[in-house]
C-alpha cells in the first residue's frame, strides 16, 4: 500500500479548524517542522495540540502560538516559550498539563484500544483531582484515560513506501506512540526508501499505524541547548 504523498500540502489535506492534533517531538528534537510551517500557511484555527512541549517563540509549535492558531495545549512541559506563558497567564490559551509518562502512556493506550489504565503518577497532587483512585499492593493509583487525535503528525528519519518508519537516536521520543493514536497519521521523514529496503526486524513504527508519508523539503533541526566540551580540556566525563 503506497502511502507516499508528493509534498507537505498533499500530506496535510483535510486538517481543519477545531481539530485535535498530536505532534511528535521532545523540545525541538524530532518535531515535524515542515508540517508545522504548513499548518501556519493553512491558517487552521482553534486547534487542540497534544505535544510534550510547545516549541520556542519562533520555531516549532511556537509558530502556531504566535499566530493564535492554538486554542488548547496538552503537554507535560512548556517552559522556554515567553509567548506561551503570556497567553496562558492571560487566559487566552487553555493548557492541560500532564505528567510526561502519563502523556506517553495515554497516547499509546489511545492507539492500542486501551481506554484507561492506572498509574501512581500524580496521586496526591492536583493532577488527581476528579480522577478515580484505587489501591494496588498498598499503593494508591489514579485512573488515566487514553488520548487520540484526528491527525497525528510525526517526524521520522526514514519511511518506506508502505509507511514503515524508523527514527534516529532521541528524535524518536513521542513519535512512535503518537503514530499509533491518530485516526489519520502523517509521517514527515528525511528520506523515503522502497518497500523492502528497511530490515523488517528493525521497524520502529509498523506501516499499519501510518496513513500518509511525505519527505520534508528543508530540515533546520534547530538545537535548543548546544552543550559541548572542548577537545583539549576533555575534562567532562
Amino acid at each position, binding site marked *: 500500500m503506497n502511502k507516499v504523498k508528493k509534498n507537505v500540502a498533499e500530506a496535510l489535506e483535510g486538517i481543519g479548524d477545531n481539530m485535535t492534533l498530536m505532534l511528535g517531538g521532545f523540545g525541538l*528534537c524530532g518535531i515535524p517542522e515542515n508540517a508545522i510551517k504548513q499548518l501556519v500557511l493553512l491558517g487552521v484555527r482553534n486547534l487542540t495540540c497534544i505535544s510534550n512541549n510547545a516549541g520556542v517563540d519562533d520555531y516549532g509549535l511556537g509558530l502556531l502560538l504566535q499566530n493564535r492558531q492554538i486554542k488548547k495545549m496538552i503537554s507535560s512541559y*512548556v*517552559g522556554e516559550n515567553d509567548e506561551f506563558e503570556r497567553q496562558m497567564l492571560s487566559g487566552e490559551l487553555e493548557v492541560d498539563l500532564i505528567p510526561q509518562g502519563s502523556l*506517553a502512556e495515554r497516547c499509546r493506550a489511545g492507539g492500542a484500544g486501551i481506554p484507561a489504565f492506572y*498509574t501512581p503518577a500524580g496521586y*496526591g497532587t492536583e493532577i488527581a483531582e476528579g480522577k478515580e483512585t484505587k489501591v494496588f499492593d498498598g499503593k494508591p493509583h489514579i485512573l488515566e484515560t487514553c488520548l487520540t487525535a484526528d491527525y497525528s503528525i510525526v517526524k521520522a528519519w526514514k519511511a518506506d513506501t508502505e509507511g514503515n518508519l524508523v527514527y534516529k537516536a*532521541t528524535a524518536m521520543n513521542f513519535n512512535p506512540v503518537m503514530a499509533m493514536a491518530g485516526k489519520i497519521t502523517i509521517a514527515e521523514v528525511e528520506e523515503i526508501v522502497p518497500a523492502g529496503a528497511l530490515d523488517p526486524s528493525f521497524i520502529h513504527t509498523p506501516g499499519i499505524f501510518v496513513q500518509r508519508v511525505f519527505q520534508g523539503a528543508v530540515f533546520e533541526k534547530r538545537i535548543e541547548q548546544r552543550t559541548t*566540551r572542548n577537545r583539549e580540556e576533555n575534562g567532562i566525563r
Partner: protein
Amino acid sequence: MALDKIGIAKRIAQELQSGWYVNLGIGIPTLVANYVPHGLDVEFQSENGILGMGPFPFDGEEDADLINAGKQTITAKPGAAFFDSATSFAMIRGKHVQLTVLGAMEVSQSGDIANWKIPGKMVKGMGGAMDLVASAENIIVAMMHSNKAGESKLLKTCTLPLTGVGCVKKIVTELAVLKIEEGKFWLMERAPGVSVEEIKQKTEGELVVPDFVPEMVF
C-alpha cells in the same frame, strides 16, 4: 563553608552504587554525572529516550537528534540504547531505575515535594517529575536550603502545588545532608565548616539533630 553546586553534585555522586541505573533531573542533578567515583559502573537514563548517556559532544560534533531531557546535546556510550517515551517511562514507573536525583522548590518533613508550579506566576509543567517521584524507591533531592527570598525550602508542609507525596528520602543542600523518616528531617552531615546552628536556623520543618553531626568528606 557552604557548598557550591558542584559540591552538592559531588556529595550526591558518593551515593551511587555499582550496577545502578540512574535518572538525573535538570540543573544540579545533571552535574552528578561528572563526578562518578572511578571504577563505579552506573548508567544514566534520560527520560526523553536514552540509556547509557555519555558526556557532552566535542565542539562541532553536536547532533540535533541526540539530546537529554534537559534538551542539551549529548553523546551515547557504547552499549547505549534509544527508545520511545512510553518505554522510557515503563523503565521509570516499573522501578527499573534505581535512583532518581531531582531539584525541588520545596520539600516537606513528610517527604512531599513541590517543583513544578507557582500559581499565578510560573507554570512550566511537571515534565517527567511526577512519574519519577511516584515510582522511584530511592529519590534524592538536590537543592539550595533556602529560596531566593531567603525562606527555608525544608518545610513542615509544602505551600506550593505538590509534585508527589511522601516520596523524598534524602536531601542534599549546600549546607547539609538530611534524611526523612518518621515525618521529620534528620540531620546526617553538614558541609565543611557549616554549623549545626545555621542549618537549624534555615530549616523550617522539624529537624532532628544527633549529638554528633559529621562533616561531609570529599
